[in-house]
């Protein structure tokens, strides 16, 4: 089976190449951003942004534009809605945003199906469609991830200090509003890429799982970021490979990639937690 996986066209297929590239870009950025998301206790905000971005995904199906544009556009709007919140009522704002986002998604998906006849719109937006990504999406995702990493490098130090204690950071003279705002934009970008890979609803898995696993086993910030990115890529690529293989299990029908990716994320997290004990 492994032979057929590797040489029977797996890596030669442009669809698979595209999927691997999107998966890697999403996993790397989500892993790195996820480390700070976990440390800042913003997992819920991350999930809310993903749900808002799903409305963008649905909108792009309706308008026939590049899905990344839709996901990120709405994600950015959501990030704007969350800026300037204190950590306490951030949860509240995220909860309201989440509801609004999903409600809007329901409406836009309805239109996409009834007006444009997009088949499987709901599944592809909510649960991802790596193998159905438009050609060129991989390259776009790669550059988006690169831009995200550079932006994070720019705010890295004040972000780390503020994640420890925001008052300590502001006594030190850091512009913590700016840092928090830029971080939300990064969160929206990471969630966008993950939404394209595993779907809006499951993007939280890629954001939180690898990062939480990495944090269990690292004592230095850059080690945590590196490990989170590696874990994420391993899960994504492993998931793509398993989905590709599943074609043989239930002949002619590929299992959802997202199922494999999220299962692998769970395994990695469990292994890291077990090692920590």
């Amino acid at each position, binding site marked *: 089976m492994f032979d057929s996986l590797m040489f029977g066209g797996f890596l030669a297929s442009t669809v698979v190449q595209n999927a691997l590239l999107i998966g890697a870009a999403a996993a790397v950025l989500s892993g790195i951003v996820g480390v700070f998301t976990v440390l800042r206790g913003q997992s819920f905000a991350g999930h809310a942004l993903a749900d808002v971005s799903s409305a963008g995904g649905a909108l792009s199906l309706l308008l026939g534009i590049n899905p990344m544009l839709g996901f990120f556009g709405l994600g950015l709007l959501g990030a704007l809605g969350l800026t300037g919140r204190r950590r306490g009522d951030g949860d509240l704002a995220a909860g309201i945003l989440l509801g609004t986002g999903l409600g809007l998604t329901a409406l836009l998906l309805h239109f996409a199906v009834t007006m444009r006849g997009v088949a499987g719109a709901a599944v592809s937006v909510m649960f991802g469609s790596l193998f159905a990504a438009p050609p060129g999406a991989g390259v776009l995702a790669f550059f988006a991830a690169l831009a995200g990493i550079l932006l994070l490098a720019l705010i890295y130090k004040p972000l780390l*200090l503020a994640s*420890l*204690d925001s008052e300590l950071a502001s006594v030190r003279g850091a512009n913590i509003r700016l840092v928090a705002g830029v971080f939300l934009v990064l969160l929206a970008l990471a969630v966008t890429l993950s939404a394209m890979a595993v779907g809006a609803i499951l993007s939280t898995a890629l954001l939180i799982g690898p990062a939480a696993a990495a944090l269990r086993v690292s004592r230095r910030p850059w080690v945590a970021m590196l490990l989170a990115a590696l874990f994420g890529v391993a899960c994504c690529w492993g998931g793509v490979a398993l989905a590709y293989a599943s074609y043989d299990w239930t002949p002619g029908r590929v299992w959802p990639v997202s199922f494999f990716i999220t299962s692998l994320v769970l395994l990695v997290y469990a292994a890291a937690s077990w090692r920590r004990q």
Partner: protein
Amino acid sequence: MSLTVTNLTVRYGGREVLRDVGFALEPGAFCGLIGANGSGKTTLLRTILGFETPSAGRVERDGTVGYVPQKLQIAADMPVRARDLVALGLDGHRLGFSWPSAGRRRRVEEMLASVDALAFADQRVGELSGGQLQRVLIAHALVSGPKLLLLDEPLANLDLRAAAEIVALLKRVAGQGVTVLISAHDMNPLLGAMDRLVYLANGRAASGRTEQVVRTEVLSELYGYHIDVIRVHGRILVVAGNAEAHHHHDHDHVAAIP
């Protein structure tokens, strides 16, 4: 003066927590900020830092400030070692990437040594004991060379020996010209070191040189019950006693202390 607080009034909602508080500290002063739980010590320090906006009065600071907060909730998973936290005190505000430099590393190393924290420099901050974390936070606050150091109850969770060591460390820092303002609900560990004292009660502050304020009649007046100032082996100790006899309810005259 490296810190001047003038007619400061701070309210939470409608409640006045600090009223008409004023004092000034010159460079190198070692000043205790003494008061019971809820007397407004944290509020005063946070107002000096600009985290709370006073409804009246002014704070003038000369130069940069270092701050050691009363409590810091650190996630156990926080992948930051003690030495990383100290390094962030040096450039934690700076945007952009910078390569590790030998000079920066040496500065951090010296700072860790001066607070006697080298032994646990590579431990995660979330794994440090209260006293160890206190030292690391002091190093974080001092490494950038501030003119003013504010510490909120740094001795609260320390044993007698650790407290004495921290006080000695802070005294050395003050000796180098840094103004130290340190809050405490128990003034005893500070008595050998502090040369100035700000006492908070009922929103008002009394301040003065330590030997002016730490006297039986003055302290009994401030606390509202009898306080003995005892001298043993050339050291001073403050002991509360005989509470009923000298009970006062009115503390408005507190501010009149020289």
